[in-house]
C-alpha cells in the first residue's frame, strides 16, 4: 500500500486550472522528484500537500489518513523552501529549535535533538550564528535541519538548491540524499533541473501543463520518453518527424522518432555519409552538429583523446544503434 496517495487532485486560480486530475502514489522511504518546467504546477502540488494552498477537489492520503481537511500545523510535514525562510531574528540553534518549541518539547530534550540534527548537517559549530552570518549552502542546511528535527512524516523540498552555485549544489544534493537514506524519510523534491532529478531520485514524476506526463525511475525516463515533451525536456534528444526519420534510417517510418545524441556513432571507417557542420567542446563530451542523408542531427561523442575531435567539414560514417530509437507520441 502506498504511503502517500494523491487522488484526483484539482486546483485552479481564478478559473484557470493549475492541474485538473493529478494522481500519484509514493511508497514509504522513497525519494520522489516532481520535475517540470516553470508554471507546470509542481510547486503548487507541493504546497497543496503541505496544506499551504487549498485544493478544489480530491484527496491526499498520508499513511492512510486524508490530510486535506487538516491545517499545515497538524499534517506533520516538514518543508524546505528555495528562499531558505530562516527566521532572521533567531540564531541557528533557535531556528532549528523553533518547531520543538511549538511542540512544547522539554528544554533539555530539545537542546539534545537540535545538537544531534546540527551534527547531522555538519553545522554544530555554527549554532550561535545568525542566518545573515552564513553562506547560502549553510543556510539551506539549517533549513533542512529545522524541518528534520521535528521528525516529520513526510519531507517536502521546494527547489532547495536553485539559489546556490553549481559546486555547493552538487555537494548539497549528495548530502540531502545521504541524510534521506539514513533517516528513511519519505521525500518529495521539486525541481526544474533534469540532472538533479536524475541523480537524486528513486522515481521521477515528469509534469507538463498541470499533468503528470510520465513517471518512472531515472533510467526509464531517460531512455524511453513517452512523448515529444518528455524527449525534449530530458536529455538533448534528436526529434525527427516520420519523413526525416525515413530518410535517415532508409526504411519507412510512420511516427515520430527520438534519438539520444550519444547513441549515434561517428567513425572514419565505412561510407562517409555524414558531414560535420559545427562542433563545441563541453568538457568530457564533444557536441557535433551533423548533416546526414539530408537530416540535421546533434551527436555527442566522449572526449577520450585528440582523435575524437574532428574539424568542421569532415565527412564521416554515421551509425545508429536500433535499440536507441524511441517512438514518441
Amino acid at each position, binding site marked *: 500500500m502506498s504511503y502517500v496517495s494523491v487522488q484526483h487532485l484539482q486546483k485552479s486560480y481564478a478559473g484557470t486550472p493549475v492541474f485538473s486530475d493529478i494522481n500519484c502514489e509514493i511508497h514509504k522511504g522513497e525519494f520522489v522528484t516532481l520535475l517540470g518546467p516553470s508554471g507546470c504546477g509542481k510547486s503548487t502540488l507541493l504546497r497543496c500537500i503541505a496544506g*499551504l494552498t487549498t485544493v478544489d477537489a480530491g484527496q491526499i492520503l498520508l499513511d492512510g489518513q486524508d490530510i486535506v481537511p487538516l491545517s499545515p500545523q497538524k499534517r506533520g*510535514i516538514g*518543508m524546505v523552501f528555495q528562499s531558505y525562510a530562516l*527566521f*532572521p*531574528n533567531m540564531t541557528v540553534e533557535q531556528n532549528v529549535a523553533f518547531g520543538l518549541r*511549538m511542540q512544547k518539547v522539554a528544554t533539555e530534550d530539545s537542546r539534545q535533538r537540535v545538537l544531534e540534527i546540527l551534527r547531522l548537517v555538519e553545522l554544530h559549530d555554527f549554532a550561535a550564528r545568525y542566518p*545573515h552570518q552564513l553562506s547560502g549552502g549553510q543556510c539551506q542546511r539549517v533549513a533542512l535541519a529545522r*524541518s528534520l528535527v521535528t521528525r516529520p512524516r513526510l519531507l517536502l523540498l521546494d527547489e532547495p538548491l536553485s539559489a546556490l552555485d553549481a559546486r555547493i549544489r552538487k555537494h548539497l544534493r549528495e548530502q540531502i540524499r545521504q541524510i534521506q537514506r539514513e533517516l528513511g524519510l519519505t521525500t518529495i523534491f521539486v525541481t526544474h533541473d533534469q540532472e538533479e532529478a536524475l541523480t537524486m531520485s528513486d522515481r521521477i514524476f515528469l509534469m507538463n501543463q498541470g499533468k503528470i506526463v510520465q513517471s518512472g525511475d531515472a533510467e526509464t525516463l531517460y531512455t524511453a520518453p513517452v512523448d515529444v515533451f518528455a524527449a525534449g525536456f530530458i536529455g538533448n534528444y534528436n526529434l525527427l518527424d516520420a519523413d526525416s526519420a525515413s530518410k535517415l534510417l532508409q526504411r519507412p517510418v510512420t511516427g515520430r522518432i527520438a534519438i539520444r545524441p550519444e547513441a549515434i556513432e561517428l567513425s572514419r571507417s565505412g561510407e562517409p555519409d555524414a558531414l560535420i557542420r559545427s562542433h563545441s567542446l563541453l568538457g568530457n563530451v564533444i557536441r557535433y552538429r551533423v548533416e546526414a542523408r539530408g537530416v540535421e542531427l546533434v551527436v555527442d561523442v566522449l572526449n577520450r583523446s585528440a582523435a575524437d575531435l574532428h574539424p568542421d567539414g569532415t565527412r564521416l560514417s554515421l551509425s545508429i544503434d536500433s535499440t536507441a530509437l524511441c517512438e514518441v507520441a
Partner: protein
Amino acid sequence: MSRAESSSAVLYHRVVVYLLFAILLLPLAGTLIYSIASSWSATVLPSGFTFKWYVQLWSDPRFLNAFGQSLIVCVGALVLSVVLILPLLFVVHYHFPKLDALMNILILLPFAVPPVVSSVGLLQLYGSGPLAMVGTPWILIGCYFTVALPFMYRAITNNLQAINLRDLMDAAQLLGASTFQAALLVVLPNLRKGLMVALLLSFSFLFGEFVFANILVGTRYETLQVYLNNMRNSSGHFTSALVISYFFFVLVLTWAANILNKDKSQ
C-alpha cells in the same frame, strides 16, 4: 584618475559636505547662543552668558503642562497607529497583496489635502453634534493618526517586503505555529527596525506640528508649538531656550531609540 586629481576631488567633496553642514547648523548654533546670552542686541557678541532663560522656562508650569500635553497627544496617536496599522499591514501583505496598490493611494491623502483646509473640514464635522471633539485632545490624536499614516505605512511596508513575509509565515506554520504565534514570534521582531524608523519620523513630525493643534484645539489644550506661538511676544532669549530644549529632546530621543534598536545579531 591620478593621485593629485583624486585628492582634489576628495577635498571638493569634503568642502561641499562641510558647507552643507554649516548652512544647516548655523541657524541652530545662532539660536543656541542666543538662548544662553544674557542680552544680545546692539553688540556684535553677546554681553554675557547665562542659563536663566532655561531655568525660567523649565520652572514655568504652563510650559511643563504644554510639553506633557504634546507628549500625550503624540504618544496617543502613535499607539493608535501601531495598534491599527500593524495588523492592517499584515493582513494586506499576507492575505490581500493586491490591496497594496489601493493602500498606496489612500496613504497619500493626508498629504494631498493641505492642513488648513482639512482643519476647516474637521471643525465643521466635529465642532458640534454627537461627535463634538473640537478643543479636546481626542480630535488631535485622531487627526495626528492620519498624519502619521503615510510615515508608518511606507516604512513598515518596505520592511515587510525585505523579509519575505509569505515564506516566513509558511515555514513557521509548518513548524507548528498558529498564525498569531508566527506573526508574534517571527514577523514582528523582524519589523522592529522599520517600526522604529516610522515611530521616530512620525514623532518628530507630530511633536512640531502647529496648524492642526492651533486651529482644532488652540489654548484649550495647549501643545508645545501652540505655547511657543503664544509666547512669541515674550523675550527672544526665552523662546530660543524653548526651541533648543525641543530640539535637544528630539535629539536625545532619537539617540536613545538608536541605541535600543541596535541589532544584537550585527
